[in-house]
């Protein structure tokens, strides 16, 4: 019943035996205790489960763990430790761009992907990039502000939120 898989998670080589039906999200959360990846809908509609797969954000609830075999996965825990998104995290903190924090993982993933493709996004572009990320608490504006401020700081501007 179980299939052996090998993949890289946050730089570590991982070998696991999983049922093919196991989602990547369940593998990360249940087998690897990487609980920073959240589940809000298990059908691709909320964005709480985003992880980087080979460098691009994907829904861990819609990728089977067996499909990730041979690939590189990065979760919020890994991104956090890498220091790569430190500035983004700080702007989220400054701007209080999270309340309960359940959506935050996905927001950071979408934001990081957006900024790597489009270093100076407009507010509508930021909102569009977040179109698959549900947040019940914040009303989104503070998240848009935080991403916008990060973009400005990365490109050498002040990042003051106007």
């Amino acid at each position, binding site marked *: 019943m179980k299939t052996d898989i090998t993949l890289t998670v946050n730089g570590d080589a991982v070998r696991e035996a999983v049922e093919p039906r196991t989602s990547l999200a369940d593998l990360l959360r249940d087998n690897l205790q990487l609980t920073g990846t959240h589940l809000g809908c298990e059908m691709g509609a909320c964005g709480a489960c985003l992880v980087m797969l080979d460098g691009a954000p994907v829904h861990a609830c819609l990728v089977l763990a067996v*499909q990730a075999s041979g690939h590189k996965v990065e979760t919020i825990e890994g991104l956090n430790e890498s220091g790569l998104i430190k500035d983004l995290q700080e702007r989220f903190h400054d701007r209080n761009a999270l309340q309960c924090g359940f959506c935050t993982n996905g927001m950071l993933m979408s934001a990081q992907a957006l900024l790597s493709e489009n270093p100076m996004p407009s507010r509508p572009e930021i909102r569009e990039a977040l179109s698959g990320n549900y947040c019940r608490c914040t009303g989104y504006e503070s998240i848009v502000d935080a991403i916008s401020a990060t973009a400005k700081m990365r490109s050498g501007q002040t990042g003051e939120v106007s």
Partner: protein
Amino acid sequence: MKSPAFEYIRAESVAGAMSAYAEAGDDVVYLAGGHSVVPSLALRLQAPALMIDLSEIAALSGISFQDGWLRIGAMTRHVQAINDPLIAAQAPLFAAAAPFVAHPAIRNRGTLGGSLAHADPASEFPAAAVAMRVELEIASPKGTRRVPADEFFLDIYETAIEPGEILLAIHVPGPVAGQVIGFDEITRRQGDYAMVGAAVQAVAKDGILQDISIALFSVGTRPTRAVAAQAALMGRVIDDASIADAKAALGDDLDPPDDLQFPATMRLHLARVLLGRILANLEAVA
């Protein structure tokens, strides 16, 4: 919302996938990006015994020219339709449609082939495929064949792909000089499946339409070619009068489903509004 149990094979070749399918019997589902299949498993709408993963078969990837046609491998991800210069040049309706399909992360995984094979009548790419008059290359154990888009989409979630067959590639005919396109949809939220959408491709010479191809989606059981509206426009300039005639003709083209949320009259109304807007924009670029 946990999926039922199944076996899994990652196929390495098209032939390998088809023979694994044949061996296993009928209870098999091919897996591409998985973004339609996996949610349906989570909802326990299907329970295959075996999933055969096509996504790492090299022959299903790649975008290249072949005899003046653009060959787009079935596993091409939605995001490539946005970024790839060849698609932008020769399959502009795919490029125009892609930003409307779901959300960024879904576009990183979902495949063009998967979208066409899935044949959701509310999907963008199938309508773009019909409007561009693409041909779909399908492999069966007996050999491969090419099916024109107009004959490919049969019904809700039903295509010319027979059980066990694999969609290999999408072939897009070369562009004609003076060709312009229009693509738009009406949604309630960004990235939602459309209430109504339309893909239009036209060739004009001195302002006169030499060719026009219109496909609407979310108006019936499959992407729908607007034959009467096309006829109303052919050989004419795009102006208020021809647009009005095309909109009126949609009444002959469409027989939208009727339900409490979306009465048929609403879909027809929206289809007319949308087509009118797209044509008015074409007028501006033509």
